[in-house]
């Protein structure tokens, strides 16, 4: 007579599917993970006026003043109050508003900006100053940028700006013994082999654009205008409110 073996209860937990579960979870977290990266437009407010502050008057050849108002949802128009003489943009009269999306406005701003690229020495001085701040050393520690680069063992490089694509061959270029060929809107970067980027500076224009917003204009209009200006090579911007003429009822 054949005796059947009774099924025995085993004490093992089956773990063959463990790696499958782990893979599934891994894929889930791979897909859902977002590393928080905040991107935005940088802006510097002017220093607080005090007894030592000297009033800076911007030369009218470098000054463009525009009043921005809102026409509807996502629709903003500019009225040119002041513009450099004999430039592509001229002072407009009331009612001659132009949309912020108008390409002639973009081209005019870009032309004005590219005709006023700051001197190479000014860009290099700002870079040296940024480097000294980043390194936490007092200003004047290094006599020149060359000295700082060799002392800190830094690698100079040029990061091309968007204006190279927009302006093509019409972009103002300059040669520099440290960085080589530099175009308007490029970023000059000093990097450390171990720490990465240490200091940078954008080759910018001396054109100053002052934006006067109507008080009820949306904040979106300011970002729209700043975006337009940065894209066309203007980094020196002032923001204020258009003073109402007459009193409110």
């Amino acid at each position: 007579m054949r005796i059947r073996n009774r099924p025995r209860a085993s004490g093992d937990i089956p773990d063959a599917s463990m790696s499958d579960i782990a893979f599934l979870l891994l894929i889930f977290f791979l897909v859902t993970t977002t590393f928080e990266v905040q991107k935005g437009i940088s802006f510097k407010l002017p220093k607080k006026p005090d007894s030592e502050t000297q009033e800076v008057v911007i030369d009218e050849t470098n000054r463009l003043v525009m009043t921005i108002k809102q026409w509807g949802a996502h629709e903003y128009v500019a009225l040119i109050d002041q513009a450099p003489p004999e430039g592509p943009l001229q002072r407009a009269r009331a009612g001659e508003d132009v949309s912020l999306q108008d390409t002639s406005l973009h081209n005019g701003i870009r032309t004005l900006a590219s005709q006023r690229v700051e001197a190479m020495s000014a860009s290099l001085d700002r870079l040296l100053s940024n480097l000294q701040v980043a390194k936490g050393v007092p200003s004047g520690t290094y006599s020149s940028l060359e000295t700082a680069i060799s002392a800190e063992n830094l690698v100079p490089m040029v990061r091309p700006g968007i204006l190279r694509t927009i302006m093509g061959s019409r972009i103002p270029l300059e040669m520099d013994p440290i960085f080589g060929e530099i175009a308007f809107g490029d970023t000059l970067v000093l990097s450390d082999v171990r720490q990465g980027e240490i200091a940078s500076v954008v080759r910018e224009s001396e054109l100053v654009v002052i934006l006067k917003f109507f008080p009820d204009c949306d904040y979106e209009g300011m970002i729209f205008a700043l975006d337009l200006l940065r894209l066309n090579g203007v980094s020196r911007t002032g923001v204020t409110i258009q003073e109402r003429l007459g009193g409110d009822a």
Partner: protein
Amino acid sequence: MKFKRRMKVTGNIFTGTMADIVFLLLVFFMATTLFKEDGGLRVRFPQAHHEVMNELGKQYLTVTVWVKQVEPGNDSSELVARIGDYDMPLSQIAEQLSILSDRFWREQNKRLDVVVLNIDSRVPMQAMVDLFGSMRFEEIYSIQFNAEELGLY
């Protein structure tokens, strides 16, 4: 005479440690995943080209401010501002930033580098320019306006 066996090359890839690697990766992603939104208000960001925007470096000490208008278009509607989990009127933001800046300096010996502004696109410019004025008064000058990349929605 004794013959030595030749070493055979096998075609198998050793996968014994695969599960360990997978578990390590799993733990990493479980630890870094964020489901919760950064304690801010639900704001609608304005849009800008990615070429003009830059990322904030990790080395910067930042404070994030959120501002939203509760009822857009209504003059009597209130502006809500938030730092961390605390709501406050917009007029108090600059003062609070100054207090935080002093605290960073006292406790960590670090200066507040950048104030990140997450502002709803419908906030009126009058309120924004007033905020800039009060921030200047408190000697807080560096700002980043957060925006969505153009074309994302």
